[in-house]
């Protein structure tokens, strides 16, 4: 069933649903008293969710004996980057109004921005080299090594969220736990 080509279309639409939902809420004028904050938080949330989903593909393939899940990993990863771009643009446009100097100062000054920017930067080469052509060019081994950067992105993303919240750390803690379990799984497989 997972091999049916329509499943990819389904996952594609599924990954776009959060954006449609946001658009619908905007249309309904239902983005709270501070729409810009809501959009920032919302897109950020989906980056973390999709990073967790990408990281979950490998363990789930093994544990559920569904090797075909690999067909969706690149797409989910690219959608994580897509929401990352939206999140970054929201910040750059609506918070900094494209003032690069301000942005660079900000990255240096506010630790949670530093972490978030690092998480975003780490995703850029992964998105660029996500094509089959780049896998061939780099060779499987080197490509795989490079794509371990997603671990950096996941950890930096969680730290970014953790440093952002004032005191109620439940949300970042949940993402932290999920990322932690998924990374520990890999460490355990490696050590076995």
């Amino acid at each position, binding site marked *: 069933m997972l091999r049916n080509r329509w499943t990819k279309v389904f996952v594609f639409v599924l990954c776009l649903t959060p954006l449609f939902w946001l658009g619908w809420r*905007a*249309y309904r*004028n239902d*983005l*709270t*008293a*501070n*729409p*810009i*904050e809501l959009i920032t938080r919302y897109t950020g949330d989906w980056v973390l969710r999709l990073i967790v989903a990408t990281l979950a593909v490998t363990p789930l393939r093994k544990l559920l004996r569904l090797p075909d899940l690999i067909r969706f990993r690149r797409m989910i990863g690219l959608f994580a980057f897509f929401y990352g771009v939206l999140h970054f643009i929201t910040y750059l446009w*609506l*918070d900094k*109004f494209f003032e690069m100097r301000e942005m660079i100062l*900000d990255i240096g*000054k*506010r*630790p*949670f921005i530093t972490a978030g920017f690092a998480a975003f930067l780490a995703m850029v080469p992964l998105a660029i080299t996500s094509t089959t052509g780049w896998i061939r060019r780099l060779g499987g081994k080197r490509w795989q090594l490079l794509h371990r950067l997603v671990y950096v992105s996941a950890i930096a993303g969680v730290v970014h969220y953790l*440093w*952002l919240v*004032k*005191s*109620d*750390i*439940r949300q970042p803690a949940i993402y932290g736990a999920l990322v932690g379990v998924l990374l520990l799984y890999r460490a355990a497989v490696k050590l076995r």
Partner: protein
Amino acid sequence: MLIGKASEYRYSEITPQSVFLRRREFLAAMMASGSAFAAGTKLEGVVKSNYKVDDAVNSYKDATTYNNFYEFGTQKELPAIQARNFKTSPWTVSIEGDCAKPRKFSVEEIMKLAPLEERVYRFRCVEAWSMIVPWIGFSLSTLLKQVEPTAKAKFVAFETYYNRKEMPSSNYAGIPFPYVDGLRLDEAMHPLALLTFGMYGEMLPPQNGAPIRMIVPWKYGFKSIKSIAKIKLQSSMPPVTWNLAIPHEYGFYSNVNPRVDHPRWSQGSERRLGEFRKRPTLMFNGYDEVAGLYSGMDLKKFI
């Protein structure tokens, strides 16, 4: 779409839909409590004060659905939902400590001490957003004079009502409760420091700190303590909840200061709710008349 155009109607001409839809509830609640001062009740005989900024007032909806009241949830939209049944009448405030006449007051008694004034203030949150709200109350000094502070009194400590059963979210907020805050006595006696009972012509709704709260417009919003149960005059500097929770980020004073950044929010500018561009933040939130309270103090140090 995202940023709506300002309505051509003034807030005072509009009954917010939420209030309109709940009119029976309000009537029932008023009769049940036997009080004329339940949340949402229209306040009569309010005089317009000269304390009024010219900026456009934010909508009632903005001010009542975007709240930080951690006892009722740490997300902005939650207090409006989770504080809905918070019982704020009858309510007493205990005033104690270094004063000649300590005693308990009912909110109704306090409200009769002076004519109620409508003051349109800027409200600036430490999270770098702001709004313009027409508050109703009178200077805190009116109440403090009633109990006659003694010479020992140098500070005023405030405490928010706290009951874990009524405030289930408080378990997850990550800050200690009851919420406490404080002012120096001279800050508390400044006429701008507003003892507040209402907003937009009505008694405060629960999520905005009913039935009695402080509004200290030249300080970040969290200094404007909500749902006050206790006020104590004392000689020592009182503890402040956010300072207890994160000492390296919050001090005692927390004056609005565009030149002193917070680790998470640069304080040089702010987003007025409903506006797209950011505005520059003003020293003391534009209330320069308080500058004298801090003469000779290095405000980079006394945050």
